[in-house]
């Protein structure tokens, strides 16, 4: 194995990048200006205003039935299109039963 094979292993690459960042930080720390603490210095920038905090709770309840709807139809389409032994009345009956089950599931999803 070559050296690059060892360096390109993700943990090794991460540690190398960390080391380089630390070295750069140490090299440049010597001539940076002293930080002056001030009120509001570490607050988010909002044109000098206070940012009003808002509690957000993502709600996927309305999206969920539509996601399941498209998933069911997608799977049903794949199932019908690739129905094994697709010949004869038995196969057609099996397909129809499958579609009926899908229809009942969708009914439960939206009406139940």
């Amino acid at each position, binding site marked *: 194995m070559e050296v690059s094979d060892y360096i390109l292993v993700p943990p090794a690459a991460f540690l190398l990048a960390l080391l380089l960042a630390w070295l750069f930080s140490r090299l440049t720390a010597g001539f940076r*200006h002293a930080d002056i603490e001030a009120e*509001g210095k570490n*607050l988010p920038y909002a044109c*000098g205003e206070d940012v009003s905090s808002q509690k957000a709770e993502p709600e996927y309840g309305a999206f969920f039935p539509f996601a399941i709807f498209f998933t069911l139809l997608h799977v049903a389409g794949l199932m019908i299109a690739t129905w094994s032994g697709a010949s004869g009345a038995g196969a057609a009956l099996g397909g129809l039963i499958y579609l009926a089950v899908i229809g009942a599931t969708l009914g439960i999803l939206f009406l139940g």
Partner: protein
Amino acid sequence: MENKVIERVVTWARMKSPWIIHFNCGACNGCDIEVLDALTPRFDVERFGVMLKGTPRHADVLIACGPVTRQIEARLKRIYSQMAEPKFVVAVGACACSGGVFDGCYNVLGGVNSAIPVSAYIPGCPVRPEALIDGVVKLLSTLEKKEEPAPAVSKTV
């Protein structure tokens, strides 16, 4: 010796790319429009490395227009405190320099220097972009000599 070389390199880099943030402290918008005129293609100060930034944390120079109203004072001070060291303030326009025609109003504190230290004053009502460029050049030229610039005054062009 080594530190001096590094400081010279840093100063050179700072002079070649003074990033600015523009803040209206209560101006009538006349000076703001002229600042934008200086930034946009007709005068195009970006060719000198001057770039308008959207946050004080990336800016070296605060371009302040208008008189400091009592309502804006705390906001101006917070923005100034959020800038990284070393930082410079340019008072743009007669109102920013001294309060202008608004000086003495019940809601006006005064010029920009009544709230934060100012590095350069550019008088004019409104300032012309040429004056703004002249003021920024004067401010930058003081950086070559020492770290903390004495207030530079640009003549009105």
